[in-house]
């Protein structure tokens, strides 16, 4: 019998969960989707990656582990997120540098609030997961805002140059597009914050409840997590978009052509 004691389902439990992957594979075969290999590969990769991460985190989040390990782990997360962003938004000028700046700024702001105000105790067990939330949840929005800005600079060149030709600065000329890109990136996060609890029980809460925490307490943690995600997405996208906007124009208030944009 598979029980849940303090969040441990055991190897047997993990293997049994694999039945659900088999369900997905069966559906793929039945409807001839051709996705069996992708499903199996993705599941295997997830398993290996998480087992590795779990093993490493043993040395990071234990109360006896020095805090510096947690900080190093966060640096690794920021770097990986920046790298992923640079791959997914490759045409964006100086994307790697700007991503590093954006995720770092966001982590500092959000974690500064969470630990500075004593909302959570500063230890590996809190620092690593919360930093992971900040960075992980900002990734999609950051890629989106970056791509949107680039699309605007390319497709709306006529309108932007129309404003520049009237004597507006680069900032003024680009403002409506910057605003639109940020709105596009933030609205999904706002929508999912609105729907939380009604449509789905989010991961943090599920994890806490499974581990035996009182749902009333789990909920408070979840709310604070939703707020921190909103704050971090807003901060990351703001820093990223301001950085990109500057790179799209020359100091002489000219909209650069794609060949003129400087890269990392």
């Amino acid at each position, binding site marked *: 019998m598979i029980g849940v004691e303090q969040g441990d389902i055991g190897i047997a439990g993990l293997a049994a969960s694999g039945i659900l992957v088999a369900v997905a594979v069966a559906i793929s075969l039945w409807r001839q989707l051709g996705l069996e290999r992708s499903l199996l590969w993705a599941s295997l990769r997830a398993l290996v990656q998480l087992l590795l991460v779990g093993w490493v985190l043993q040395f990071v989040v234990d109360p006896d582990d020095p805090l510096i390990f947690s900080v190093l782990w966060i640096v690794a997360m920021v770097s990986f997120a920046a790298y992923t962003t640079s791959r997914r938004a490759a045409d964006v000028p100086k994307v790697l540098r700007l991503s590093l700046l954006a995720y770092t700024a966001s982590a500092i702001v959000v974690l500064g609030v969470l630990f500075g105000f004593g909302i959570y105790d500063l230890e590996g067990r809190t620092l690593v997961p919360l930093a992971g939330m900040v960075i992980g949840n900002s990734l999609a929005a950051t890629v989106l805002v970056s791509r949107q800005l680039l699309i605007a600079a390319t497709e709306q060149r006529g309108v932007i140059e129309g404003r*520049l030709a009237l*004597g507006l600065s680069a900032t003024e000329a680009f403002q409506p597009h910057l605003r639109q890109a940020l709105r596009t990136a933030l609205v999904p996060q706002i929508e999912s914050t609105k729907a939380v609890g009604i449509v789905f029980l989010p991961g943090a809460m599920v994890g806490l409840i499974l581990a035996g925490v009182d749902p009333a307490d789990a909920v408070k943690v979840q709310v604070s997590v939703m707020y921190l995600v909103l704050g971090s997405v807003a901060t990351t996208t703001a820093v990223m978009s301001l950085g990109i906007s500057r790179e799209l124009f020359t100091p002489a208030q*000219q909209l650069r052509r794609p060949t003129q944009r400087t890269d990392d």
Partner: protein
Amino acid sequence: MSSADAFELISVDAGPVGGDPILRSIDLVVPANGVTVLAGPSGAGKSTLLRLLNRLDDPVAGEIRWRGRALTEWAPTELRRQVAMVFQRPPLFAGTVLDNLRVALADVDAERAAHVLEHVGLDSELLDHEADSLSGGEAQRMCVARALLTDPAVLLADEPTAALDRAARATVEDLGRMLADSGVAVIWVSHDTDQLRRLADHVIVLADGAVRAVGHLAELDASDDPLVRQSVGAP
């Protein structure tokens, strides 16, 4: 012939960064009184040259001077208020005609807005119409009105009638003529020789990235260079 508002190009190369220059070692004085038409075959560099005059692009080599100063010594925003531009495809901003005018001058009042519309031959009733409901000719005239709000000394026009039908073309040409006569110098890129002959006080013929001829229409009609005569539609 050259007025105080003439643009002086000195050894100018212009074109895509890292690519072959479209304009090569141009030494030229672009007159800025009346209507100056930039003519020449497609790809000659006419639009490239025009865009240098309000620094939408910069030359890759050489210098351009206006009113006694290198263009690079001007604040770009100030330069562009004095050297305005209209484009082949009129860039329409979100909202009404009044909203569009306000982009040029944020605090323009309804009276001034109505006045500038009438100046370009548009009904002031159009102020609260959505800008994208205007016809091609109306939109282009609105763009001229919008540009005039910054009190420019020069209006650059990059093939402003190329996308318009004949009737709309005529109204915009008349507007260009009127502006030039009222003291706003017009520098107009055109590949239409009939239009050139209707409008030009001065002509600059460009070909293959170089200046082939500069002068009044009558002089160029008598040019020895067949390309020049062809470019101005000499009879």
